């Protein structure tokens, strides 16, 4: 399972390395979103710094949708999906590999967005490790749920419009938790309030990763 996962993740990342879709389209979109939020909330830097955690995570969620779309569309042409199923790769490995590839791209994107939030909105981060941990855990959760829905909808022509509708409400706990952890990390002092949210993210990740590992085979048959 782990070897298969590494193979699939390597394949997806190699495709990204050669096509640069995430780098040249998704990442700039994230920056555009940050600029648009700034336009929406006005030039007052205090307001923007206050809203920075939420805006960061909303931008991440939107980019997640795009990254998942890309991850699915990579498999949709040239019979790639059937090829993967014929190759004898373990479904659980395939799931983890796809999720890891999405997560890796999202992490790079989040570094960029976090820098944007700090520079553009003037957000001050007091407890950096909480930011890092929340980003890693949140990203794993988004990649885990996104890959599940991506696979479930992969055979549908309407998946571009349906995926955000189905995925974003499911990801609501990630948005809430991520925002609260960022707020705690920006406020500094006692990070205790952030810790329970970190636990929630851990549970979220564990639950959906387990569901994906167990059910990815049947889900593939459905699509």
């Amino acid at each position, binding site marked *: 399972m782990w070897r298969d996962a590494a193979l699939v993740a390597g394949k997806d990342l190699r495709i990204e390395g050669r096509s640069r879709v995430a780098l040249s389209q998704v990442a700039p979109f994230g920056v555009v979103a940050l600029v648009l939020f700034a336009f929406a909330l006005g030039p007052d830097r205090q307001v923007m710094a206050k809203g920075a955690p939420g805006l960061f995570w909303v931008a991440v969620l939107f980019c997640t949708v795009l990254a998942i779309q890309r991850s699915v569309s990579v498999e949709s042409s040239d019979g790639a999906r059937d090829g993967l199923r014929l190759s004898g790769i373990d479904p659980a490995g395939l799931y983890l590999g796809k999720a890891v590839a999405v997560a890796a791209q999202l992490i790079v994107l989040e570094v960029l967005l976090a820098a944007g939030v700090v520079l553009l909105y003037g957000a001050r981060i007091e407890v950096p490790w909480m930011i890092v941990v929340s980003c890693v855990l949140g990203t794993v959760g988004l990649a885990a*749920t996104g890959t*599940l*829905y991506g696979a*479930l909808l992969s*055979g*549908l*022509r*309407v998946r571009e419009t*349906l995926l955000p*509708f*189905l995925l974003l*409400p*499911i990801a*609501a*706990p990630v948005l*809430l*938790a991520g925002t*609260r952890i960022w707020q705690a990390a920006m406020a500094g002092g006692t990070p205790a309030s952030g810790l*329970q*949210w970190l636990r*929630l993210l851990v*549970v*979220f990740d564990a*639950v*959906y990763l387990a*569901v994906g590992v167990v*059910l990815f085979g*049947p*889900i593939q*048959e*459905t*699509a």
Partner: protein
Amino acid sequence: MTSDLTALPVSGPPAAPVPDARVDPPPVQSSRSKLVERVIGVTALVGIAATVWLGLWVTPPDKVQGDLVRLVYIHPGVAWVALYLAFGLAAVSSLLYLWPRTRSLFWDRLAAAAVEVGVVFNICTLVSGSIWGKPTWGVWWAWDARLTLTAVLLVLFLGYLALRRIPAEPEVRARRSAFVALFAAIDIPLVHFSVNWWNTLHQGATVLNPGLKLKIHGSMAWTLLLGFLALTLAFVWMLLVRYRVGVLEDWLAANELDFALAERQSEGAGPSGTDPGAGPGKGPSGEGPSGEGPTGDRVGVA
């Protein structure tokens, strides 16, 4: 395509039921299940009427809330049906569908019916809650934990219904929807905890609180319980009807084209003579309850 067929001036009156071996007969409801359905429906209606009468005229106004308290006979009952009964039933039947030993389209149709009725009750919950919230809290909507959870549930299950609308073979659609219902059901406790930590303003549960101790008494309590029962029965009745319609929809999707073809062929064999007035709306090839033709049912599947 069907609408084109019916729009054409047809020759001869359309023969109503076409005897043809290729067309399955539509599923017929047994007289016993029809009776059960009627009894439940009428009981629910009487129960709701009694609740309205007791709630509006017999029970006293509240010390603090005055007449506003009368919403307690409807709002928690509707919420109970929407949030616990309907969505719980949908989650359980989706799980039973996914479980290989109990896999049957029965569970899929039951889940679909439960979600659809549940969404209606969920909207009623939000609307009645808003009407209550405005005079007591001063706002139509507050980002309170329970309100937020209810709204997230509504969105999750609207997504389920949107997915179901995508045309597909019944088994494929059933599996796909069951997975989505399952993912949503898993999400509910997580959303519950997160919105609880996020914000809490709503009062505690009146009936379904830990220990099941009723916080109201006398005629008010009885009216409240009657309302719960009546609304539960109304839910069961809607569920039965929706399930039956679901069976008919599946039959229509599978047989509509054969039916229309058989009808066309019998027209050619029938007596000639032009009667344009007998066109749309009369033949069984017209629009079904779903409003979707058989061709529309297959578009969109790659």
